[in-house]
């Protein structure tokens, strides 16, 4: 035990939380990151972090309700025990981050201030200005620096994880990595490797994700035998600022404060927006959804904006898809007071004042609910068994995954302000689990033959050398990446069609083939970003293929995955009896679909393609129910569904789900 070490890949919220907790428990940690950990993608999170709190509790909120909102928001696709554990840990995590010095906004009396986010009725979200992710990350970075000063944590910044090292028995014994500056490739012995490498945004070319979010670390584990779960579930944010380099988030609050979304009725209207008379403007959200107007739910807004540009050809710009998000009708003083911060972001990056000119926005890939498949051990209370080596394990002994790169917490769609929570939670929670795994391990990494590490290193070294020396194949990795991004964005984001997905899957095969013929424009032996990028690009294909294959297989609509062909429409009849009848039929169909598709897709890599299997979802705490937000006739369906459930529980004589949902809060 004494000389056992853990290697953490990734220094975002999850990786830092894990490193901090492990060091606190006395385990030495090597912390590896593509970038100085303080620059990790977690800094981009703006909104906040959710937990049930003293105020919401008095309004009827509970950890149980947080669990319920999370699984309902995720369309019941996540195993419920981990989510329960997370929801119940949330208040303690907020307390911890508060103690670590996070500059959360305060109430007049000095308590933490909270705001309300989508998908809940309670003001659960604690926040620090518009940079909550940054503030949380810094607090953990500081603690990690403290342990680093004490010698318990070693940082390896600017190192690229190339592969886990598995011994003959398949146990993960460390990793091979490459220094991005000196290009040195070396092996790191470790008794446990924890991957906390974040999402795969770059698979989509431009997204709201940072440039290190290539998904390569996950892909390298996937190619070494780890499984990839729910890949097809990719969250798209409706409003982002399209930039030549990346898509930057424009907070939903712009619409909340009265922003109006429109396009010119005439395709490719070249007039300046302010010169287009109202009659010639198409306020499509307001026209199509008179009740909700511009404040339709996120997924609907996303689909409509996408539809108006792609299918109706009404994009504001001819060569780039975008619509207007207009705030110019609101007085400047009011805008400054309510939206100052986010408007400054737009101004800073676009050089245009959104108080004078409508903003141009378009949906953007934002978060991957899918990720490395991980295990868990359910406790008697329906949560997780603390300290069990199964929790967060990828199934490869000694290889764990946490944070955005695990598939476990968000199901089919993620609620706003839950991602920061899941990252910190999984990071803290995994530490004792990893410790038990190490205690149970047969032989430590230090006892492994040197040849294991040397061979692994040499494999990667020869791959690297071969790539550097390969004959010019004529493919430019950067342009190939653009093609990949365009393809993925077209086929596998907001609206998915089987014909497009089939075509995209074939095209992915071709692109993957072409990526083997990349011509490197840099043969330098120092900070060769060209070769590093080319490697990452090649490793994007297994992930991209898993996303597309998963989406192609899944013939239904669930969470962020939307196939119009399989969408459940609302009730058509106005006549009450018929309406009731239709609602019954709707519920029948829903149950059938649940039976067939309430399963996680679990991909494994066969060397060329992902093979997709399906896994039952543990919905033992909260039974699945229809998500009806905004659906015509939703209230009738809800009523029919409630009757049906009551009847069923009556038949079975105990009504377990109902009971558990009421009993649970009292157990806290």
């Amino acid at each position, binding site marked *: 035990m004494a000389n056992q070490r853990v290697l953490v890949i990734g220094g975002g919220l999850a990786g830092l939380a894990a490193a901090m907790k492990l060091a606190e428990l006395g385990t030495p940690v090597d912390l590896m990151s593509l970038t100085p950990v303080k620059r990790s993608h977690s800094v981009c999170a703006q909104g906040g972090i959710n937990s049930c709190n003293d105020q919401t509790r008095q309004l009827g909120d509970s950890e149980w309700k947080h669990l319920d909102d999370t699984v309902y928001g995720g369309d019941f696709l996540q195993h419920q025990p981990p989510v329960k554990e997370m929801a119940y840990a949330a208040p303690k995590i907020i307390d911890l981050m508060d103690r670590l010095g996070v500059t959360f906004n305060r109430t007049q009396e000095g308590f933490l201030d909270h705001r309300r986010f989508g998908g809940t009725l309670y003001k659960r979200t604690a926040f*620090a200005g518009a940079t909550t992710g940054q503030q949380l990350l810094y607090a953990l970075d500081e603690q990690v620096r*403290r342990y680093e000063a004490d010698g318990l944590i070693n940082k390896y910044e600017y190192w690229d994880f190339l592969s886990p090292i598995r011994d003959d028995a398949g146990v993960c014994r460390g990793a091979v990595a490459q220094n991005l500056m000196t290009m040195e490739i070396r092996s790191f012995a470790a008794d446990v490797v924890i991957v906390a490498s974040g999402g795969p945004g770059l698979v989509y070319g431009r997204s709201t994700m940072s440039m290190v979010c290539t998904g390569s670390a996950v892909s390298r584990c996937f190619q070494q035998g780890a499984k990839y779960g729910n890949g097809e579930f990719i969250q798209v944010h409706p409003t982002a600022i399209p930039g030549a380099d990346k898509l930057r988030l424009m907070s939903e609050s712009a619409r909340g404060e009265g922003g109006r979304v429109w396009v010119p009725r005439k395709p490719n209207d070249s007039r300046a927006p302010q010169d287009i008379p109202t009659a010639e403007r198409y306020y499509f959200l307001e026209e199509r959804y008179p009740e909700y107007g511009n404040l339709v739910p996120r997924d609907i807004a996303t689909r409509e904006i996408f539809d108006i540009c792609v299918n109706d050809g009404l994009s504001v710009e001819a060569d780039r898809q975008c619509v207007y998000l207009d705030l110019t009708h609101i007085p400047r003083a009011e805008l400054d007071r309510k939206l100052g911060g986010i408007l400054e972001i737009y101004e800073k990056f676009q050089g245009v004042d959104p108080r004078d000119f409508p903003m141009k926005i378009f949906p953007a890939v934002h978060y991957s609910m899918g990720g490395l498949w991980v295990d868990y051990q359910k406790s008697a209370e329906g949560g997780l068994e603390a300290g069990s080596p199964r929790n967060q394990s990828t199934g490869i002994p000694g290889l764990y995954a946490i944070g955005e790169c695990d598939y476990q917490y968000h199901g089919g769609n993620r609620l706003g302000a839950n991602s920061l929570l899941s990252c910190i939670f999984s990071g803290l929670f995994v530490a004792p689990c990893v410790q038990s795994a190490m205690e149970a391990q047969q032989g430590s990494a230090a006892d492994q033959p040197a040849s294991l590490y040397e061979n692994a290193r040499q494999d990667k070294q020869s791959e690297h050398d071969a790539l550097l020396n390969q004959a010019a194949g004529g493919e430019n990795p950067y342009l190939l990446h653009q093609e990949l991004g365009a393809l993925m964005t077209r086929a596998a984001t907001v609206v998915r069609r089987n014909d497009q997905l089939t075509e995209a899957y074939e095209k992915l095969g071709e692109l993957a083939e072409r990526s083997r013929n990349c011509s490197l424009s840099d043969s330098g032996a120092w900070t060769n970003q060209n070769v590093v990028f080319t490697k990452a690009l090649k490793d994007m294909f297994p992930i991209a293929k898993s996303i597309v294959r998963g989406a192609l297989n899944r013939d239904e609509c669930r969470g962020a995955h939307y196939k119009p062909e399989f969408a459940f429409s609302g009730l058509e009849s106005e006549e009450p009896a018929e309406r009731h009848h239709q609602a019954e039929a709707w519920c029948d169909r829903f149950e059938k679909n649940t039976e067939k598709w309430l399963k996680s897709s679990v991909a494994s890599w066969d060397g060329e393609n992902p093979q997709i299997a399906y896994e039952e979802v543990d919905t033992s705490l909260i039974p699945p129910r229809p998500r009806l937000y905004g659906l015509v006739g939703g209230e009738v369906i809800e009523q029919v569904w409630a009757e049906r459930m009551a009847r069923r529980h009556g038949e079975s004589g105990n009504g377990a789900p109902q009971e558990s949902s009421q009993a649970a809060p009292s157990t806290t």
Partner: protein
Amino acid sequence: MSDHAANGHSDSFEVRILRQDAPGESSYWERHRVEHEPDMNVISVMQRVAARAQSADGKPVAPVAWDCNCLEEVCGACTMVINGQARQACTALVDKLLDEQPAEIELQPMQKFPVLRDLVVDRSRLFRALTRVKGWVPVDGSYDLGPGPRQSRTEQEVAYPLSQCMSCGCCLDACPQYTKIELTPGVDESAADFAARQEQTHDSAFLGAHAISQTVLFNSHPTGKVNAGERLDVLMDEGGLQICGNAQNCVAVCPKEIPLTTSIARAGRATTFRLLERWFEK
């Protein structure tokens, strides 16, 4: 709105980049021609330069290396000297730069840090300074021990801007008192020995505005205060606060508009009292 975007100015523009192939090698200028696109920033210029891998005269060249990550000005990675001033490449908009200096855009690596390659520099000294000042809240541990100390809204409003520091290093690059330290590894020196020697050298060199400001941040935190004296002692040690020459470039170039000179003055006051305390109370 920029005139360039509106008028559709010339189709392409020139970028002059100060390159260096490896640490310690000599640097050289290279010209690149980049097609103009709407809403371009220096990051997208660098992406085009990397994809094209050709200098302005059509000669094939290795892509220019540079550092970046979030592209939203919250990670601090993409600092470089653009048209003579240290700033973030992500918020440096091409149209504005061309308004300032129409002929070309000039890119150089940060001047106070050793160049690793092209525009990539080694900023480990900057992070080391955060360790020197014990930039953390010394909590008992991460177990559930209830909420943190209650803090007034005013305290939060003072602390929040300071905690937005993203370690980009603009304040250091623009500081006339922060001078470059570049060591070269000895012939027989191991990487670990070299790193240790580097750390030791950094530990007696100027901390810089960012670290002084972090000291003030942690010294004002109800729990962080516990170490206030130790942190002030670091500010009063070699390479501490005394090196500041009040040129105040730090606050002028800080992309997050952190009140660095206010922090410096607050640290000045605190160290004054610390000096008296050391003389008369101990």
